[in-house]
């Protein structure tokens, strides 16, 4: 099967379109999360997504309808992580660990009570972008539009809190409001990304493009652009490789992403030897 043939299939077009949109969101948000040392929030929210998906399936909400259950739970969990960090005298990683443990254990119990892991739940664990439906692409596109709009409107505030919470606060920026926006947008993106790479690999979509971009970027906007470029390219190349080689799409996407990261490290050593230590 050649490339043109591959691209002529509707399910592949849908996968490439939805995958690119989701990768765009995750990689841009990832830059803010990595710089704020909240990289693992993706993992924590993914585990909550697992628990909430088990609830959705137990309530017989399948496919797109499951979002009606998962979305509000994951949004609430993201705010819970933030509140635990702010008020609970806990560091970010501890708060993420707590919420993550709650999500995954609730998921396991519900899956067990509901008769074990069915196909739907497994597809959420490992992702199944090639089975994405037209209505899911539309939802991904709408949410992507909304998230990108919010990121554009609050770009400078997000930049400021990523640089320093303290300085942002003295500039009159409502840091807890902006932090809430950041984690809520992340929660939305994690729920979307679940279909693309699965719960197990979601955090790589958030972290790896940002980590790659940080190797080479000379400027904050350049960093966001490079992260988006790496994230989207990884999805496109990963999906095509997976079809041509009959490999799982989610793992292929993540492996391509990691190869981009490794290449960025090598390029940095060649171009900026002084920054390599």
């Amino acid at each position, binding site marked *: 099967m050649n490339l043109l043939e591959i691209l002529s299939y509707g399910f592949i077009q849908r996968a490439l379109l939805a995958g690119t949109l989701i990768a765009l969101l995750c990689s841009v948000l990832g830059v803010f999360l990595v710089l704020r040392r909240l990289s693992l929030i993706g993992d924590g929210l993914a585990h909550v997504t697992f628990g909430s998906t088990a609830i959705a399936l137990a309530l017989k909400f399948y496919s797109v309808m499951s979002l009606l259950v998962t979305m509000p739970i994951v949004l609430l969990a993201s705010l819970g992580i933030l509140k635990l960090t702010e008020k609970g005298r806990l560091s970010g990683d501890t708060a993420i660990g707590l919420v993550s443990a709650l999500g995954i254990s609730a998921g396991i119990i519900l899956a067990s009570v509901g008769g074990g892991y069915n196909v739907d739940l497994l597809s959420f664990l490992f992702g199944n972008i090639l089975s994405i439906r037209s209505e899911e692409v539309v939802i991904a596109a709408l949410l992507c539009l909304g998230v990108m709009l919010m990121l554009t409107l609050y770009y*400078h*505030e997000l930049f400021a809190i990523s640089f320093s919470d303290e*300085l942002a606060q*003295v*500039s009159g920026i409502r840091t807890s409001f902006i932090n809430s926006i950041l984690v809520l947008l992340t929660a939305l993106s994690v729920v979307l990304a679940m279909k693309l790479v699965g719960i197990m690999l979601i955090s790589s979509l958030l972290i790896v493009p940002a980590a790659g971009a940080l190797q080479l970027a*000379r*400027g904050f906007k350049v960093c966001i652009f490079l992260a988006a470029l790496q994230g989207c390219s990884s999805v496109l190349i990963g999906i095509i490789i997976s079809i041509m080689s009959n490999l799982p799409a989610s793992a292929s996407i993540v492996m391509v992403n990691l190869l981009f990261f490794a290449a960025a490290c090598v390029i940095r050593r060649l171009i900026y030897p002084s920054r390599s230590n």
Partner: protein
Amino acid sequence: MSGAIVSTEQLSCSYREGRVLEEVSFQVERGDYVGIVGPNGSGKSTLIKALLGLVTISSGSASLFGTSLTGFRDWHKVGYLPQSLHLVNPVFPATVRETVGLGLLSLKRFPKRLNRDDNDKISIILEELGIYDLEHKLIGELSGGQLQRVLLARAIVNDPELLVLDEPTAALDPETRGRFYAMIADINRTRGVTVLLVTHDSGAIGEHASKMLYLDKKILFYGSFDEFCCSPEMSSLFGEHSQHLMCHRH
């Protein structure tokens, strides 16, 4: 009280380990250059943070520009420079120009955008502080002295009326430190900016500051350097030798 730029009334702050500030009352007038000195753990940084709303006040009150801190919104009137080493993530990918631009956000309404005039302002301040040639460098690539000047540029690019500095020279060598103090003094004289500077370097600050606030949880002394240097109470508190060391450069 209404004419004061900074005013506190019986201000107290506590952390889990106990009281850090006890009933601190003082006022800073427009154009003052106040050096806040005191031993380690005396509450100097906490006082600054309380005045900027960064730590919770346990009792008493604080106001900026005559407005109680809880209702204060004119943050564009305030420039803040913390200890840079604690602040900057060395891998943060911002350029010097982008970093200085952050200082203009307090002047902007939602959605915050920087325009051509803002870019001109950034260029002017970079020129004034002698760091224009660094504009495209990443902040992680700067030396301690360069980084301090960049953060100072960020703090004053919005033409603040009050500049608050928290041990800004802690990581600098003595020569760079001297140049930095001279730069702050120049900003105070030529722009009329009120300066509140926390430092360990009480001797050096005597060269420039118009007032000194000696803090050890409570205010032990607040007044001009001349008053401090001639005060028999301070002689008995510090000993004549220490007092002389603080005053000899004034």
